[in-house]
């Protein structure tokens, strides 16, 4: 079976609207989490988030699209990131047209729907129906295909916070099986009142900047963004520059609770173990883990215990970059895969911000400083979603 190579990446998030600016923010410890300014929510002075400081009009401009197109914020973010990956890979014409697009999202076009719905509830004749044309999860995937001139296989996955990790996994599988030669795989999610209020009702939002893996952590910060990888089969990459390889992946169900993880991290443990099996690597060969690390009491304990069980006395360096971007929900898997690729390119470890005290249940701490010259070959990236949908990716360079 051919290897699955990454030949292009694209990313937009609260810490930068392309790979270069994201990289600089990570190196310089510039978090993108702050006060919400673009959404008119009752929580704007209370709940910090990783909001992309660009209005939809500005996103239209960045995407090079006419603003009369009625695109949702999720679709705009997706198109921007997908386009970057395609340009980075130098793809165009027929080879682009035949590519697959596999995207993960949880929010879909809810950012426009919630605006429409409020008006509509008050008065059935109010609200522009075109606002909801992009509501469903499949819309942003289709918009990417439309705007990039792609007519290959397209698919949309919604498995909560592991959606885009699963999209990458699906794309890699299809390439290995020879069903497709190349794919744009990733995801997008925008910040909405829907998710702000929902997560707030679960009481897992920190009123401060999140502190992943810290003893005194108090919840997560929501974020928004998009990222895509251009994946190509080893059989067709020729002399193209290879950024990385999608070497391993695993997905399991925690089967414990709709939104909480099991105390012993059973699903997480199995997912990481499976990824190692697919990658044919031993735990000792993983050089860095980009943890799911949301900053909730529950996830960080569950994930921490699972990591301890799997890696035993050889726990690799790790950090949660959600301390920079916030939890970007469906886009998290892809955003963190791109960040992992940047780390491999620069051979560095990005820090886990806001960490001061080790969790008393664990025997390891995340890296709280930026570490250059880190000697990295294999990176594991975890994404654990509601519904117990746990995914782990392994991304490598030679």
């Amino acid at each position, binding site marked *: 079976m051919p290897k699955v190579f990454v030949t292009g990446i694209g990313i937009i998030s609260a810490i930068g609207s392309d790979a270069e600016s994201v990289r600089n923010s990570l190196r310089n410890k510039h978090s993108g989490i702050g006060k919400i300014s673009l959404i008119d929510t009752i929580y704007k002075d209370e709940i910090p988030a990783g909001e992309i400081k660009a209005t939809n009009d500005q996103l239209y401009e960045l995407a090079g699209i006419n603003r009369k197109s009625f695109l949702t914020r999720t679709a705009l973010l997706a198109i921007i990131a997908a386009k970057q990956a395609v340009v980075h890979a130098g793809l165009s014409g027929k080879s682009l047209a035949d590519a697959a697009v596999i995207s993960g999202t949880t929010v879909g076009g809810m950012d426009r729907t919630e605006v429409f719905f409020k008006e509509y509830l008050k008065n059935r004749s109010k609200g522009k129906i075109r606002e909801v044309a992009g509501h469903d999860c499949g819309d942003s995937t289709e918009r990417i295909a439309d705007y990039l001139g792609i007519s290959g296989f397209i698919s949309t996955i919604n498995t909560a916070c592991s959606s885009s990790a699963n999209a990458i996994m699906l794309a890699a599988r299809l390439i290995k099986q020879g069903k497709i030669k190349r794919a744009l795989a990733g995801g997008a999610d925008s910040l909405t009142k829907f998710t702000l209020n929902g997560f707030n009702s679960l*009481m897992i939002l920190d009123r401060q900047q999140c502190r992943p893996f810290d003893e005194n952590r108090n919840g997560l910060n929501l974020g928004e963004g998009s990222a895509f990888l251009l994946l190509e089969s080893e059989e067709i990459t020729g002399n193209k520059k290879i950024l990385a390889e999608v070497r391993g992946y695993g997905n399991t169900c925690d089967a414990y609770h*709709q939104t909480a993880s099991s105390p012993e991290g059973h699903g997480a443990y199995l997912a990481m173990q499976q990824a190692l099996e697919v990658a044919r690597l031993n735990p000792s060969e993983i050089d860095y883990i980009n943890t799911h690390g949301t900053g909730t009491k529950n996830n960080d304990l569950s994930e921490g215990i699972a990591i301890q069980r799997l890696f035993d006395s050889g726990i690799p360096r790790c950090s949660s970059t959600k301390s920079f971007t916030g939890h970007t929900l469906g886009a998290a898997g892809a955003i963190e895969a791109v960040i992992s690729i940047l780390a491999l390119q620069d051979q560095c470890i990005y820090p886990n911000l806001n960490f001061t005290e080790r969790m008393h249940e664990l025997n390891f701490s995340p890296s709280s400083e930026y570490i250059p010259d880190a000697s990295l070959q294999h990176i594991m990236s975890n994404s654990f979603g509601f519904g117990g949908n746990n995914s782990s990716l392994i991304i490598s360079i030679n």
Partner: protein
Amino acid sequence: MEQLIAKLKAEIIDALNLTEITPESINENEPLFVEGLGLDSIDALELIVLLEKKYGLKLGTAEEGKKVLRSVKSMAEFIRANNKG
């Protein structure tokens, strides 16, 4: 107090979709979580919403929440102490 406890039991059953449970079968002194009714973390959050929605009472911290939500009796006492029942 008895009336409040009876009312609370009915409200809890409704809020938590405990369809097969009758108010009579709930012992107001029994723990609501872990043993007793065996409610989970989402149920706890729903009870917090119930206290706010029906009685206008906001719980400040997780610690306060644990104490107040220990049993139907402790919930009723909390409501009474805040002159809301």
